[in-house]
């Protein structure tokens, strides 16, 4: 399978990965720079870390971001799982084409357009119904649910379309009602996909800036909003420290989940092997 890679491909791979990881290494290195400016190396220091972690503005924004991301991801996962199920299972129903269009469009829609349109919707609802009075947690969360849902839908649709329906049919033959079949058979089997969908929605919500800028109000500012307002004025050493923390947390999380998933997959393969052998 693996034919010899040409030197050209190898060179591009090396340069490509250097390009992807170089800037992050620069950020990490300079977060330990004693000098306030990024221009000169002033010796090794961890002074920016305590400064960052005692900044109440940063801590408050981080808390807001976590609240918004966890609530949005949870609702987006429920809605996205439903939408993915519908697209994978119900091959024909009236309005399927516009439905699949609405589901995938937010994936590529420029964020300024989504953000502006949601804000104008909230303003319009306010003039018609007197709700929402002002922008804040509710409006940001509603906005985040809507665009995170698209990502969960894609994950769940591809999971459901490779699902072995005979398992559900067996449960129903044995007398389980559709809802019970879903909860006892379907959901546990697709649970890993649901978890990765939730994590994806959580990270995307945590990372969003533009849609949040439009739909957020004072008092519920998120971490990206704070970072943006700081770095607009130029390079800031505490942001280097924050970036290093984010990169460390994300790398640990992604690598750990990769190892766990590879192990689970290996165990599953082994179980299948054993089952096949014992049948002989």
């Amino acid at each position, binding site marked *: 399978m*693996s034919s010899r*890679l040409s030197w050209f491909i190898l060179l591009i*791979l090396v340069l*490509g990965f250097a390009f*992807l990881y170089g800037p992050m290494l620069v950020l990490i290195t300079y977060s330990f720079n004693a000098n306030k400016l990024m221009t000169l190396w002033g010796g090794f220091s961890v002074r920016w870390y305590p400064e960052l972690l005692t900044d109440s503005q940063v801590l408050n924004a981080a808390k807001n971001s976590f609240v918004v991301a966890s609530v949005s991801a949870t609702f987006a996962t429920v809605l996205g799982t439903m939408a993915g199920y519908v697209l994978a299972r119900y091959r024909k129903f009236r*309005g399927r084409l516009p439905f699949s269009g*609405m589901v995938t469009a937010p994936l590529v829609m420029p964020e300024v357009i989504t953000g502006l349109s949601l804000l104008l919707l909230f303003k319009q609802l306010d003039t018609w119904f007197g709700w929402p009075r002002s922008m804040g947690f509710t409006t940001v969360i509603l906005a985040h*649910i809507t665009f995170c*849902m698209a990502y969960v839908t894609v994950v769940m649709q591809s999971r459901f379309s490779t699902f072995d329906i005979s398992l559900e049919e067996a449960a129903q033959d044995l007398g389980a009602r559709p809802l019970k079949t879903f909860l006892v058979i379907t959901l546990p089997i697709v649970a890993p996909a649901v978890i990765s969908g939730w994590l994806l929605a959580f990270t995307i919500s945590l990372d969003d800036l533009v849609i949040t800028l*439009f739909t957020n109000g004072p008092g519920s500012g998120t971490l990206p909003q704070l970072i943006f307002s700081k770095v607009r004025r130029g390079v800031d050493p505490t942001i280097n420290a924050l970036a290093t923390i984010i990169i460390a947390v994300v790398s640990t999380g992604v690598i750990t989940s990769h190892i766990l998933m590879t192990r689970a997959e290996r165990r599953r393969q082994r179980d299948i092997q054993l089952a096949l052998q014992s049948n002989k």
Partner: protein
Amino acid sequence: MATDTTYQGSLPLGRQLHHIAMKLGLRPRTAVILVPYLWLMLFFVAPFLIVLKISFAQTIIAQPPYTPMFGPGSVPHEDLLLNYNRLFDDLLYINAYWSSLQLAFTSTVICLLIGYPMAYGIARCAPTTRALLLLAIILPFWTSFLIRVYAWMGILGKEGVLNNTLQALGIIDAPLNILYTPVAMYIGIVYTYLPFMILPLYANLEKMDLSLLEAAQDLGCRPWKAFCVITIPLSFPGIIAGSLLVFIPAVGEYVIPELLGGPNALMIGRVVYNEFAQNRDWPMSAAVAVAILLLLVIPIMLFQYFQNKAQEAPK
């Protein structure tokens, strides 16, 4: 009535809901479709209709800052296409459109030129290496987008890491001016969107039937020619998907021009935001947004077509 509620209260909740739904003539299947459907109608489709409506309105200094053209409390003005005419009359808007399209298109081509060989290389590695390299492509995507753009501010600045290194090595005498120029924006877009190009290309190249290439070589075809006449045409869906995933969002990019492009970088996404937030000109901002959408409708539909095909293929 009282007995009815106690009767229902004794049933489990799921059964009760089922009962109510049946009474309303709502099958479970319909309910499962209806919930996400209505959500998207309310929070995705309705907002666009409101943008469209406001794009025809006239700006005033009031709360809200426009007079509606239609609907309750409307004060119709004479020129329906007021804001759209301004869009064509004012060179600012046309220039912003043109430079956004140019930037998005060129960045997409650069992403493809870097991403294709990378995806190809990863797809042809041994399975364990492949999984690791793929993880390395996805990892930057999980870390903050904003932070990755910000990293380049420290690298490309006049006294940034790049200039300092080049000067220390004696390669250049005076610092290069890269930050706050179009070059910095190209670097920023290619850097942040490269994983979006590589992933669909990889997914496509990995599935490719290598026996086709072997057959071509057995018949005397040179590797380079086999690559051009077999690999590239077969990976066409991947090329399209990756390119659209880069091109469409890049057209409306706001953060990258704001942080790396400097004050003179007039990009259309930035115009939408500034018209809205700084000039408080909601109708103009809405009109610019509608014009972007009209431009992107065909690419977006193309993306959906390929997306649907890819989702239905494994069946």
